Protein backbone atom coordinates (compact mmCIF):
# COMPACT_ATOMS: atom_id res chain seq x y z
CA UNK A 1 0.00 0.00 0.00
CA UNK A 2 1.18 3.53 -0.83
CA UNK A 3 0.05 6.72 0.86
CA UNK A 4 -1.08 10.01 -0.58
CA UNK A 5 -2.56 13.22 0.76
CA UNK A 6 -5.75 14.02 -1.12
CA UNK A 7 -7.02 17.60 -1.22
CA UNK A 8 -10.52 18.35 -2.53
CA UNK A 9 -12.27 21.71 -2.71
CA UNK A 10 -15.55 22.75 -4.22
CA UNK A 11 -18.49 25.07 -3.62
CA UNK A 12 -20.32 23.63 -0.66
CA UNK A 13 -23.35 21.47 -1.41
CA UNK A 14 -24.78 18.21 -0.11
CA UNK A 15 -23.16 14.99 -1.33
CA UNK A 16 -19.50 15.95 -1.74
CA UNK A 17 -18.16 13.66 1.00
CA UNK A 18 -20.37 10.79 -0.11
CA UNK A 19 -19.30 11.07 -3.76
CA UNK A 20 -15.58 11.37 -2.98
CA UNK A 21 -15.43 8.57 -0.41
CA UNK A 22 -17.56 6.22 -2.52
CA UNK A 23 -15.21 6.74 -5.47
CA UNK A 24 -12.20 6.06 -3.23
CA UNK A 25 -13.82 2.93 -1.84
CA UNK A 26 -14.52 1.57 -5.31
CA UNK A 27 -10.87 2.27 -6.26
CA UNK A 28 -9.67 0.18 -3.28
CA UNK A 29 -8.44 3.14 -1.25
CA UNK A 30 -8.54 3.31 2.53
CA UNK A 31 -9.09 6.62 4.32
CA UNK A 32 -6.89 7.57 7.26
CA UNK A 33 -6.74 10.88 9.14
CA UNK A 34 -9.07 13.41 7.57
CA UNK A 35 -10.17 16.98 8.04
CA UNK A 36 -13.31 17.99 6.17
CA UNK A 37 -14.96 21.34 6.70
CA UNK A 38 -16.58 24.33 5.12
CA UNK A 39 -14.33 27.35 4.73
CA UNK A 40 -15.62 30.58 3.21
CA UNK A 41 -18.48 28.84 1.40
CA UNK A 42 -16.23 26.13 -0.02
CA UNK A 43 -16.16 22.61 1.25
CA UNK A 44 -12.62 21.39 1.82
CA UNK A 45 -11.29 17.91 2.32
CA UNK A 46 -7.75 16.98 3.27
CA UNK A 47 -7.20 13.35 3.95
CA UNK A 48 -4.56 10.69 4.07
CA UNK A 49 -5.43 7.81 1.78
CA UNK A 50 -3.82 4.45 1.22
CA UNK A 51 -4.07 3.14 -2.30
CA UNK A 52 -3.15 -0.27 -3.63
CA UNK A 53 -3.10 0.53 -7.34
CA UNK A 54 -1.52 3.52 -9.11
CA UNK A 55 -2.23 7.24 -8.91
CA UNK A 56 -3.96 7.24 -12.29
CA UNK A 57 -6.56 4.76 -11.07
CA UNK A 58 -7.39 6.97 -8.09
CA UNK A 59 -7.72 10.05 -10.27
CA UNK A 60 -9.86 8.19 -12.81
CA UNK A 61 -12.15 6.93 -10.04
CA UNK A 62 -12.64 10.45 -8.71
CA UNK A 63 -13.23 11.97 -12.13
CA UNK A 64 -17.04 11.52 -12.38
CA UNK A 65 -17.54 13.13 -8.95
CA UNK A 66 -15.10 15.93 -9.84
CA UNK A 67 -17.08 16.77 -12.98
CA UNK A 68 -20.53 16.40 -11.49
CA UNK A 69 -19.83 18.50 -8.40
CA UNK A 70 -17.31 20.96 -9.86
CA UNK A 71 -14.50 19.92 -7.55
CA UNK A 72 -10.78 20.58 -7.67
CA UNK A 73 -8.62 17.68 -6.61
CA UNK A 74 -4.95 17.35 -5.78
CA UNK A 75 -2.98 14.25 -4.85
CA UNK A 76 0.47 14.28 -3.24
CA UNK A 77 2.35 11.08 -2.60
CA UNK A 78 3.59 10.99 1.00
CA UNK A 79 5.68 8.54 2.92
CA UNK A 80 4.27 7.14 6.12
CA UNK A 81 5.79 8.80 9.14
CA UNK A 82 5.95 7.30 12.61
CA UNK A 83 3.20 8.41 15.01
CA UNK A 84 4.09 11.80 16.52
CA UNK A 85 4.81 11.56 20.21
CA UNK A 86 3.69 15.03 21.29
CA UNK A 87 0.08 15.52 22.30
CA UNK A 88 -1.86 18.74 22.77
CA UNK A 89 -1.43 19.99 26.32
CA UNK A 90 -2.53 23.58 25.78
CA UNK A 91 -5.59 25.19 24.19
CA UNK A 92 -5.45 28.88 23.33
CA UNK A 93 -8.51 30.92 22.51
CA UNK A 94 -8.03 34.26 20.81
CA UNK A 95 -10.69 36.74 19.78
CA UNK A 96 -11.04 40.37 18.98
CA UNK A 97 -11.93 42.96 16.36
CA UNK A 98 -10.47 41.59 13.14
CA UNK A 99 -7.34 43.24 11.80
CA UNK A 100 -4.24 42.05 9.92
CA UNK A 101 -1.50 40.49 12.01
CA UNK A 102 -3.35 38.66 14.78
CA UNK A 103 -2.36 35.16 13.66
CA UNK A 104 1.17 36.19 12.77
CA UNK A 105 1.84 37.81 16.13
CA UNK A 106 0.31 35.01 18.22
CA UNK A 107 1.90 32.15 16.33
CA UNK A 108 5.22 34.01 16.10
CA UNK A 109 5.34 34.25 19.88
CA UNK A 110 4.42 30.57 20.19
CA UNK A 111 7.07 29.48 17.70
CA UNK A 112 9.65 31.23 19.87
CA UNK A 113 8.73 28.83 22.68
CA UNK A 114 9.02 25.76 20.48
CA UNK A 115 5.23 25.40 20.73
CA UNK A 116 4.01 22.85 18.19
CA UNK A 117 0.59 23.73 16.73
CA UNK A 118 -1.40 20.53 16.20
CA UNK A 119 -4.72 22.11 15.37
CA UNK A 120 -5.67 25.68 14.47
CA UNK A 121 -9.16 26.73 13.53
CA UNK A 122 -10.36 30.24 13.00
CA UNK A 123 -13.43 32.04 11.91
CA UNK A 124 -14.15 35.55 10.75
CA UNK A 125 -17.64 36.48 11.75
CA UNK A 126 -19.83 39.22 13.06
CA UNK A 127 -21.05 42.33 11.36
CA UNK A 128 -19.24 43.02 8.02
CA UNK A 129 -18.44 46.57 9.15
CA UNK A 130 -17.05 45.38 12.44
CA UNK A 131 -15.76 41.85 11.80
CA UNK A 132 -14.77 39.66 14.69
CA UNK A 133 -11.91 37.20 14.50
CA UNK A 134 -11.98 34.03 16.60
CA UNK A 135 -9.19 31.47 16.70
CA UNK A 136 -8.69 28.29 18.70
CA UNK A 137 -5.23 26.74 18.76
CA UNK A 138 -4.39 23.38 20.27
CA UNK A 139 -0.83 22.27 20.57
CA UNK A 140 2.03 21.01 22.56
CA UNK A 141 3.98 23.45 24.72
CA UNK A 142 7.25 21.88 25.80
CA UNK A 143 7.67 24.36 28.67
CA UNK A 144 4.11 24.06 29.98
CA UNK A 145 1.11 26.35 30.14
CA UNK A 146 2.60 29.17 32.26
CA UNK A 147 5.28 29.99 29.69
CA UNK A 148 2.58 30.26 27.05
CA UNK A 149 0.54 32.65 29.21
CA UNK A 150 3.57 34.81 29.88
CA UNK A 151 4.66 35.11 26.27
CA UNK A 152 1.14 35.92 25.00
CA UNK A 153 0.24 38.41 27.76
CA UNK A 154 1.78 41.52 26.08
CA UNK A 155 -0.08 40.74 22.84
CA UNK A 156 -3.45 41.43 24.47
CA UNK A 157 -2.72 45.13 24.66
CA UNK A 158 -0.49 45.29 21.60
CA UNK A 159 -3.11 43.70 19.31
CA UNK A 160 -6.24 44.64 21.25
CA UNK A 161 -7.37 41.01 21.53
CA UNK A 162 -8.56 38.66 24.23
CA UNK A 163 -6.38 35.62 24.82
CA UNK A 164 -7.08 32.77 27.19
CA UNK A 165 -4.79 29.83 27.74
CA UNK A 166 -5.99 26.53 29.19
CA UNK A 167 -4.13 23.39 30.13
CA UNK A 168 -5.68 20.41 28.33
CA UNK A 169 -3.96 17.44 29.84
CA UNK A 170 -5.03 14.12 28.50
CA UNK A 171 -6.17 11.89 31.32
CA UNK A 172 -6.13 8.16 31.03
CA UNK A 173 -8.78 6.29 33.02
Amino acid at each position, binding site marked *: MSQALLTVIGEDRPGIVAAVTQALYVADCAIGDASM*MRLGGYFTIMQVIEYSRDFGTVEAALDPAVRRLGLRVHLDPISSLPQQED*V*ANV*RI*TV*YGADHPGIVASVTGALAGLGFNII*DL*ESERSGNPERPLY*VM*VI*QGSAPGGVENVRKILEPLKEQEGIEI*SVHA*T*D*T*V*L*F
Partner: protein
Amino acid sequence: MAVLPVLAYPDARLQRVSVPVECFDDDLRKFAGDLTETMYAGPGGVGIAAPQVDRLLRIVVVDVRPRLGEACHGLMVLINPELVAWEGMAVGREGCMSVPDFTGNVIRAEKIQVRARDVQGRDRFYECEGFEARAVQHEMDHLDGLLFLDRLVSRKTDLFRRKKYQTREPGPA
Protein backbone atom coordinates in the same frame (compact mmCIF):
# COMPACT_ATOMS: atom_id res chain seq x y z
CA MET B 1 -5.92 -9.91 45.76
CA ALA B 2 -5.36 -10.31 42.05
CA VAL B 3 -4.99 -8.19 38.95
CA LEU B 4 -7.84 -9.10 36.62
CA PRO B 5 -7.70 -9.05 32.81
CA VAL B 6 -9.24 -5.88 31.34
CA LEU B 7 -11.54 -6.02 28.29
CA ALA B 8 -10.65 -3.82 25.33
CA TYR B 9 -12.91 -2.32 22.68
CA PRO B 10 -14.24 -3.62 20.23
CA ASP B 11 -15.17 -6.32 22.74
CA ALA B 12 -18.99 -6.14 22.74
CA ARG B 13 -19.11 -7.06 26.44
CA LEU B 14 -18.14 -3.46 27.26
CA GLN B 15 -21.47 -2.27 25.93
CA ARG B 16 -23.68 -4.23 28.28
CA VAL B 17 -25.63 -2.61 31.13
CA SER B 18 -24.57 -3.68 34.63
CA VAL B 19 -26.97 -4.71 37.37
CA PRO B 20 -27.14 -3.38 40.96
CA VAL B 21 -25.27 -5.18 43.72
CA GLU B 22 -27.69 -6.79 46.17
CA CYS B 23 -25.48 -8.89 48.39
CA PHE B 24 -22.81 -7.10 50.43
CA ASP B 25 -20.81 -10.16 51.44
CA ASP B 26 -17.20 -11.34 51.58
CA ASP B 27 -17.27 -12.26 47.88
CA LEU B 28 -18.16 -8.68 47.05
CA ARG B 29 -15.38 -7.33 49.26
CA LYS B 30 -12.88 -9.72 47.70
CA PHE B 31 -13.95 -8.65 44.22
CA ALA B 32 -13.78 -4.95 45.17
CA GLY B 33 -10.21 -5.58 46.39
CA ASP B 34 -9.24 -7.26 43.12
CA LEU B 35 -10.87 -4.49 41.13
CA THR B 36 -8.93 -1.87 43.11
CA GLU B 37 -5.66 -3.71 42.57
CA THR B 38 -6.40 -3.97 38.85
CA MET B 39 -7.01 -0.22 38.76
CA TYR B 40 -3.70 0.60 40.44
CA ALA B 41 -1.90 -1.75 38.02
CA GLY B 42 -3.40 -0.01 34.97
CA PRO B 43 -1.76 2.62 32.79
CA GLY B 44 -3.92 5.43 34.19
CA GLY B 45 -4.32 3.95 37.64
CA VAL B 46 -7.05 6.35 38.80
CA GLY B 47 -10.34 4.65 37.97
CA ILE B 48 -12.01 1.41 36.90
CA ALA B 49 -15.49 -0.07 36.59
CA ALA B 50 -16.53 -3.70 37.18
CA PRO B 51 -17.76 -4.33 33.60
CA GLN B 52 -14.23 -3.56 32.35
CA VAL B 53 -13.15 -6.83 33.98
CA ASP B 54 -16.22 -8.67 32.66
CA ARG B 55 -18.35 -8.46 35.84
CA LEU B 56 -21.73 -6.88 35.16
CA LEU B 57 -22.08 -5.23 38.56
CA ARG B 58 -22.67 -1.55 39.31
CA ILE B 59 -19.33 -0.96 41.01
CA VAL B 60 -16.74 1.70 40.23
CA VAL B 61 -13.48 2.43 41.96
CA VAL B 62 -11.82 5.85 41.78
CA ASP B 63 -8.67 7.09 43.45
CA VAL B 64 -7.18 10.23 41.94
CA ARG B 65 -4.42 10.63 44.55
CA PRO B 66 -1.75 9.70 41.96
CA ARG B 67 -2.69 12.94 40.26
CA LEU B 68 -4.07 15.24 42.94
CA GLY B 69 -2.26 14.08 46.05
CA GLU B 70 -4.39 14.38 49.19
CA ALA B 71 -6.66 17.12 47.75
CA CYS B 72 -9.42 14.61 46.97
CA HIS B 73 -11.47 11.84 48.58
CA GLY B 74 -8.75 9.22 48.12
CA LEU B 75 -9.97 5.70 47.44
CA MET B 76 -13.71 5.60 46.71
CA VAL B 77 -15.43 2.27 46.12
CA LEU B 78 -18.83 3.31 44.77
CA ILE B 79 -21.42 0.56 44.70
CA ASN B 80 -24.74 1.21 42.95
CA PRO B 81 -23.70 4.85 42.45
CA GLU B 82 -26.25 7.47 41.47
CA LEU B 83 -25.56 10.95 40.21
CA VAL B 84 -27.94 13.12 42.24
CA ALA B 85 -26.81 16.56 41.07
CA TRP B 86 -24.37 18.17 38.70
CA GLU B 87 -23.33 21.62 37.55
CA GLY B 88 -20.97 23.27 35.10
CA MET B 89 -19.43 21.85 31.95
CA ALA B 90 -15.84 21.39 30.93
CA VAL B 91 -14.11 19.91 27.91
CA GLY B 92 -11.29 17.50 28.63
CA ARG B 93 -9.28 14.98 26.66
CA GLU B 94 -9.79 11.46 27.96
CA GLY B 95 -8.36 8.06 27.31
CA CYS B 96 -9.42 4.70 28.70
CA MET B 97 -7.58 1.45 29.33
CA SER B 98 -10.41 -0.34 27.50
CA VAL B 99 -9.81 1.83 24.41
CA PRO B 100 -6.09 1.52 23.71
CA ASP B 101 -4.17 4.27 21.90
CA PHE B 102 -7.03 6.67 21.34
CA THR B 103 -7.88 9.89 23.17
CA GLY B 104 -10.64 12.37 22.53
CA ASN B 105 -12.41 15.43 23.84
CA VAL B 106 -15.39 14.82 26.10
CA ILE B 107 -17.66 17.28 27.93
CA ARG B 108 -18.30 16.43 31.59
CA ALA B 109 -19.96 18.19 34.49
CA GLU B 110 -17.49 20.14 36.64
CA LYS B 111 -19.15 19.39 39.99
CA ILE B 112 -21.21 16.37 40.93
CA GLN B 113 -22.93 14.84 43.92
CA VAL B 114 -22.97 11.06 44.07
CA ARG B 115 -24.87 8.73 46.35
CA ALA B 116 -23.59 5.17 46.64
CA ARG B 117 -23.05 2.24 49.00
CA ASP B 118 -19.69 1.14 50.30
CA VAL B 119 -18.46 -2.48 50.51
CA GLN B 120 -20.29 -2.91 53.84
CA GLY B 121 -23.56 -1.73 52.27
CA ARG B 122 -23.52 1.59 54.14
CA ASP B 123 -24.86 4.74 52.48
CA ARG B 124 -22.20 7.12 51.22
CA PHE B 125 -22.44 10.60 49.78
CA TYR B 126 -19.66 12.41 47.93
CA GLU B 127 -19.25 15.81 46.36
CA CYS B 128 -16.57 15.80 43.70
CA GLU B 129 -15.24 18.43 41.36
CA GLY B 130 -12.78 18.87 38.54
CA PHE B 131 -10.59 15.91 37.76
CA GLU B 132 -12.16 13.67 40.41
CA ALA B 133 -15.67 14.44 39.12
CA ARG B 134 -14.52 13.63 35.57
CA ALA B 135 -13.09 10.29 36.71
CA VAL B 136 -16.32 9.31 38.51
CA GLN B 137 -18.45 10.22 35.48
CA HIS B 138 -16.16 8.35 33.10
CA GLU B 139 -16.31 5.19 35.25
CA MET B 140 -20.07 5.42 35.89
CA ASP B 141 -20.64 5.50 32.13
CA HIS B 142 -19.15 2.00 31.93
CA LEU B 143 -22.03 0.75 34.12
CA ASP B 144 -24.45 1.75 31.37
CA GLY B 145 -22.33 0.27 28.60
CA LEU B 146 -21.05 3.65 27.49
CA LEU B 147 -17.48 4.46 26.53
CA PHE B 148 -16.03 7.95 26.21
CA LEU B 149 -16.20 7.27 22.46
CA ASP B 150 -19.98 7.65 22.81
CA ARG B 151 -19.51 11.20 24.08
CA LEU B 152 -16.80 12.50 21.77
CA VAL B 153 -17.12 16.07 20.68
CA SER B 154 -15.46 17.47 17.60
CA ARG B 155 -12.06 19.04 17.87
CA LYS B 156 -13.79 22.25 16.96
CA THR B 157 -16.17 22.03 19.89
CA ASP B 158 -15.13 24.31 22.68
CA LEU B 159 -17.11 25.88 25.47
CA PHE B 160 -16.08 29.22 24.08
CA ARG B 161 -17.95 28.45 20.88
CA ARG B 162 -20.99 27.19 22.70
CA LYS B 163 -21.61 30.54 24.31
CA LYS B 164 -23.24 31.93 21.24
CA TYR B 165 -25.91 29.24 21.40
CA GLN B 166 -26.74 29.96 24.99
CA THR B 167 -28.35 33.35 24.51
CA ARG B 168 -32.02 33.22 25.39
CA GLU B 169 -34.92 35.23 24.12
CA PRO B 170 -35.82 37.92 26.64
CA GLY B 171 -39.15 37.21 28.22
CA PRO B 172 -40.89 36.06 31.38
CA ALA B 173 -38.86 33.57 33.36
